[in-house]
């Protein structure tokens, strides 16, 4: 899977990891129950042994990040636009509030503060230029004004 696919398929990867950890927890709990533990106590012990599932999911996803994605990850995770794009059906509130705002120009400032410092520099040349070109127009590329 390329870094670009990983970026967009994060939600799917999260769901799969959650399913995998659920299976792990249930297997461990069943084994403890078979050894004579109380079911509730078995669940508690299995959860303790695994640690926080959220942390395990986060560590697993980070372990597959390329160096470029590892730099971008905190910014991308906080980006409402990416959250919507990854899975719009699971984020109805965000879709109704955040998605229309770029149309009104309201989202441009947070979008650029998110993307400008690192994003274009981590991409190959034509892709690095595209966001600037698309949003700021040709005048931005006059000599002396190019920000890279």
């Amino acid at each position: 899977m390329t870094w670009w696919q990983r970026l967009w398929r994060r939600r799917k990867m999260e769901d799969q990891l959650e399913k995998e950890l659920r299976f792990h927890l249930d297997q461990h709990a069943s084994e403890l129950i078979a050894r004579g533990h109380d079911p509730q106590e078995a669940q508690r012990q299995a959860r303790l042994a695994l640690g926080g599932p959220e942390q395990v999911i986060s560590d697993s996803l980070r372990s597959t990040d390329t160096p470029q994605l590892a730099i971008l990850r905190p910014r991308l995770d906080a980006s409402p636009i990416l959250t919507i794009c990854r899975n719009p059906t699971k984020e109805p509130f965000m879709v109704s509030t955040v998605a229309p705002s770029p149309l009104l120009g309201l989202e441009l400032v947070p979008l650029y503060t998110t993307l400008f410092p690192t994003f274009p520099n981590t991409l190959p040349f034509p892709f690095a230029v595209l966001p600037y070109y698309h949003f700021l127009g040709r005048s931005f590329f006059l000599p002396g004004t190019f920000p890279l």
Partner: protein
Amino acid sequence: MQEKSDLRQGTLDLLILKVVALGPVHGYAIAQRLEQVSRGVVQVPQGSLYPALHRLENRGLLAADWEETESGREAKFYRLTRKGRTQPETEAASWRRLIEAVGLVLKMSEGSAE
């Protein structure tokens, strides 16, 4: 009861590859087998197991498919890729060299202490 031992960095990957080399297996079974085979000495921190599995999958050493277990539940089964088959041999050879070297140093220091 055997004393437990912490795994050194990089060791877990090698051990996982060795277990998966025996046949397709899910994460929980990998942890169980490692503990059984090492007679309880190697206890894989479960929180480290899944990041390691996904790292190995991402490096192309493991491939995974969702399959049904005996209990009828779906689990993610890992198997070695062609690339993953050669990697453990190289790392195991490097481990054996290191063990031998450490053994020599320990022997030397024991000899000088007597």
